[in-house]
């Protein structure tokens, strides 16, 4: 190699220069990593609180109004954490930190769609149950916050990124909760001899819609091998949830068919008095 003849920098000053820029780099990296850590911690809180919210929604032993009121409170508390994340990332592209809060976001989407289903369910017919699905747009709208440092007409709002993939993964998990509730409802319907109007059917229809939609979407996603495996795994889980729901509805139906074939039909009417069903 023939070295280019040029004014090489003086050795000592070069060293000083290098150390100076690297000190800047260190600060830049430290800030980013610290931010990441803070978001991770808030994300963990969100996961925990969303899980609690879901458990709460399964507690149908209180009247629905009270249940929903408490649920709204819990939701507000979770949104505060999201707001904190949004404030932390005000100068950043939240997509860059998505991995730090992705588990929390997914659990939150799961909780929100479960909550929305429960709210709309009673006033929605089974054939129309698809309207109870929480949309991506709805999720995105929830995650818009006022910007305390808003300046004039710009930056009025803080938003957090909700990539489609996160939405789908969160939505996928709600089938698990719906399945749990579907089986519980089947048990209740049988217990209360209310076999024809079981909520199980509605829940099963809801799960079926989600499964069909997720199946179509998930196979179209152009994703990394690891993500692809995750989607396939979710799809398997959803399929097995759907099967469990269908089996539960089958049980309810089969039980319902038991009555007419027995002589004891008339006696039944006296036995299945409301006092019995607690």
């Amino acid at each position, binding site marked *: 190699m023939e070295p280019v003849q040029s004014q090489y920098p003086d050795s000592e000053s070069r060293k000083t220069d290098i150390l100076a820029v690297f000190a800047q780099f260190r600060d830049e990296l430290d800030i980013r990593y610290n931010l990441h850590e803070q978001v991770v911690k808030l994300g963990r809180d969100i996961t925990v609180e969303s*899980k609690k919210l879901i458990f709460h929604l399964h507690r149908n032993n209180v009247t629905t109004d009270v249940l929903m009121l408490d649920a709204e409170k819990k939701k507000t508390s979770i949104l505060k954490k999201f707001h904190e994340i949004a404030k932390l990332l005000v100068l950043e592209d939240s997509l860059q930190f998505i991995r730090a809060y992705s588990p929390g976001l997914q659990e939150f989407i799961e909780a929100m769609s479960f909550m929305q289903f429960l709210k709309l369910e009673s006033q929605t017919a089974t054939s129309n149950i698809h309207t109870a699905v929480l949309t991506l747009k709805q999720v995105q709208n929830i995650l818009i916050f006022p910007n305390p440092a808003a300046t004039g007409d710009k930056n009025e709002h803080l938003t957090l990124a909700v990539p489609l993939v996160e939405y789908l993964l969160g939505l996928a998990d709600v089938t698990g909760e719906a399945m749990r509730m579907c089986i519980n409802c089947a048990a209740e319907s049988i217990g209360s001899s209310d076999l024809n109007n079981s909520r199980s059917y509605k829940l099963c229809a809801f799960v079926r819609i989600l499964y069909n939609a997720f199946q179509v979407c998930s196979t179209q996603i152009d994703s990394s091998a690891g993500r692809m495996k995750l989607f396939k795994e979710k799809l398997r889980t959803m399929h097995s949830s759907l099967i469990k729901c269908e089996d539960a509805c089958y049980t309810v139906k089969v039980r319902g068919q038991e009555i007419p074939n027995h002589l004891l039909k008339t006696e039944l009417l006296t036995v299945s008095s409301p006092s*019995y069903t607690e």
Partner: protein
Amino acid sequence: MNEEVGVFGMFRDIESFLKTEHDVKEKIRDNVNDLEQDARRISTILQGIHQPCSAGSTTKQICHQVKAIFDSVRVCYEKLSLLVGKQQYFKYCSLWQGVTTRFSFYLSLVEFLEFGKLVERQKVADLMGLSVEKSAGFHLELDDYLCGLLLMAGELSRLAVNCVTAGDFKTPIKISKFVYDLEAGFRLLNLKNDFLRKKYDGLKYDSKKIEQVVYDIKIRGLGPKIDEGE
């Protein structure tokens, strides 16, 4: 410079510590084996409840026999407790957790059979010779007690079916109400995604199965008359 010899010495200490630990673990395993032997004996006795009355012992006898074995169980736990010491409960607890859970299950079942109610955590602990306080060292973990209750629910769903086969239409209805209450209780908990959560997920199936049995009884008018009370 005492340390000097000390470091190689430390590793020698560690080696001998590991040796001791290994021996302790072996002894714990022996004890747990004895406990498992007792658990198998109890399990065999408890199977009797699924048989037609005539074939085996009465429920009362069964419960009595089971509780008798707990004398031996208590002795075992006493020994374990001495072996393990106060500080090391959580170090070794995975070794006996399985069998403890099973004993808790047996006792919950016996309590229901005898008194139709939920066994108290304190009572389970007492019958096993344990404390319910963590501070006591060797104690009955809440998770193990709860897990025992869930195992009981599974067994009760089987019992409901077999009662009908044996012509007993009252017990399934009692079971139904009991498991309904139990489920309401569990619904209060905020569980993690752990072993307990997995077991709890099975509860809804047990509940459904029991309701099916009750339904079958009801539509055939086989259940107790309303005015009979319970």
